[in-house]
């Protein structure tokens, strides 16, 4: 018992000291942009969680008497063409955008990592077959395929989510496989093989921790691109259907009132941009810390 406690205490101590002494935290905090990214992401997350509680109005209640009102004390971001409060819609939209981004990124990550690990670790024909599958997925421009899939399945947010998840896993698979192959050849893994360490233990103790860094970075950057993708598909009309307060749909609504009510299009525009900016900054910061070899690359889907 005391031994167990002691070992837990020492493990905690070790982690704490590692965090304190390691340059990781210092490196991350040294760049104010990284801190800014973390702050934005934290703020958006808080907005998504408590937004609906603090929103002053119902996001779907129409108030035609007050339509197209400019920003005022009652409506800080104005009202839209149906008199709905933009601020409330924005707050509800944050939950929607972030939720979809988390779900899509989660599916991509799990699917892609599993396939990449399998391909990299098994090798041989399994690797060959899985990599051709990856090639096929990557042969389609992502948003074009997502658009077609979402369109055929029928316009809805759920279908947009499915479509985006299906077209994004391949980059994870490729990244994970590459890192696994590189790590597998490193001396410490060779040493472990010579010490009779089991394959499972090698995979979990030596390969996964070294693969995790680049994957976390990719996922963070991906959050931003998924948000852009969702907004783009909704903008085209395939995603959220009225009156759902989705940022892309809101922006599309604003296009008819560009001159008379600039806030309808620009408020969600700024919201999308800030969110994506936050995740991009955070991803850049994490990359400096977790993935110094820059194995993840940046792509932009929309």
């Amino acid at each position: 018992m005391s031994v167990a406690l002691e070992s837990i205490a020492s493990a905690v101590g070790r982690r704490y000291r590692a965090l304190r002494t390691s340059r990781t935290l210092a490196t991350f905090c040294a760049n104010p942009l990284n801190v800014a990214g973390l702050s934005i992401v934290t703020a958006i997350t808080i907005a998504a969680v408590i937004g609906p509680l603090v929103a002053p109005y119902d996001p779907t209640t129409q108030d035609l008497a007050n339509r197209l009102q400019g920003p005022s004390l009652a409506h800080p971001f104005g009202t839209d063409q149906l008199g709905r409060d933009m601020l409330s819609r924005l707050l509800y939209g944050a939950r929607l955008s972030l939720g979809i981004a988390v779900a899509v990124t989660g599916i991509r990550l799990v699917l892609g990592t599993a396939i990449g690990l399998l391909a990299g670790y098994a090798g041989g024909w399994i690797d060959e077959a899985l990599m051709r599958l990856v090639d096929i997925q990557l042969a389609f421009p992502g948003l074009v395929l997502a658009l077609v899939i979402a369109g055929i399945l029928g316009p809805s947010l759920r279908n947009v989510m499915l479509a985006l998840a299906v077209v994004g896993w391949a980059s994870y698979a490729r990244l994970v496989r590459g890192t696994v192959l590189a790590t597998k050849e490193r001396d410490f893994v060779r040493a472990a093989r010579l010490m009779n360490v089991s394959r499972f233990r090698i995979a979990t103790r030596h390969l996964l921790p070294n693969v995790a860094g680049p994957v976390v970075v990719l996922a963070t950057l991906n959050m931003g691109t998924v948000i852009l993708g969702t907004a783009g598909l909704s903008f085209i009309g395939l995603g959220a259907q009225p009156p759902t307060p989705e940022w892309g749909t809101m922006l599309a609504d604003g296009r008819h009132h560009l001159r008379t009510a600039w806030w309808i299009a620009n408020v969600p525009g700024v919201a999308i941009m800030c969110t994506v900016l936050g995740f991009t900054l955070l991803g850049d910061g994490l990359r400096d810390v977790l993935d110094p070899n820059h194995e993840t690359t940046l792509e932009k889907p929309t």
Partner: protein
Amino acid sequence: MDTAPYLVHRFGTSLVVLAGVSVVTYGLLFLTPGDPAEVILSQQLDRQPSEAEIEAFRAEHGMDEPVPLQYADWLTDVLRGDLGTSYYSDASVTGLILDALPLTLELAAASVVVALALAIPTGVLSAVHRGTAIDRASQLGALVGVSMPNFWLGYLLILVFALTLGVLPVAGAGSYSQLVLPAITLGTGMAAVLTRLVRSSMLDVLDEGYLDTARSKGLRKRIVVYKHALRNALVPVVTILGVQLGALLNGAVVIEIVFQRPGLGMLLVDAVFERNYPVVQGITLFTAVAFVVTNLLVDLSYRYLDPRVELGGDPA
């Protein structure tokens, strides 16, 4: 490693990928919730079709055959250049694509020019003046560009240049003045990604020992940067240009909607909403094939960019 076996290998895998692409493209049809024939007909006729009408539709479009046979028929036609006929206008899909293609190509080409003209100088300056105000400003600009939804940027440009200043047309296609705003919208987004890439690639290269060799020769800074460094820094940039073509096609779809340009993207979106499957399949297949072929060409051009790349060779 000789080039010939590599070429054979590379073409071989590309063929495998293209075969997979065709299967996926054809399979898209079966994602339709319910019976495709019924769904399509009810949309076409705008009412619930009768059993007889559905049967007739199936027969007309070969949908009564077993699926593998349908696919084989479709593929045979595709290989002959026949992508089928639109459900609505009886126009050939190949013809529709060829009509819309120039507008999209024009947009893509103009965007690439805008992107490179912005990204290379900005990225190089940013890297050379690392940590200075120039660097910070261009990094921030690039970050904003990466994060901005391009349809929003499009509307902002329309608001400023078309609606407020009135110097450029709001939308449409055909004249150069109508190309300016869409190309800037799409090009700046791409420039943002490329600027970040040029900068980081340049920073890596600026640390290389061979630049010390170049400096110690007594070369001017300008020659060290634009001859010795840039040449090496551009290798990853060209690589990513191939991938960026995908992003360009993605972007073109949205931008064509924003600016009402009747290019491939708009054709695709309209077809998706009308469930005009032959057109949807045709465009999907076309873009994927274009994408695969471009990336193949980019791969093959490596050798000329980076003499270290032994095509298909394994690092000994």
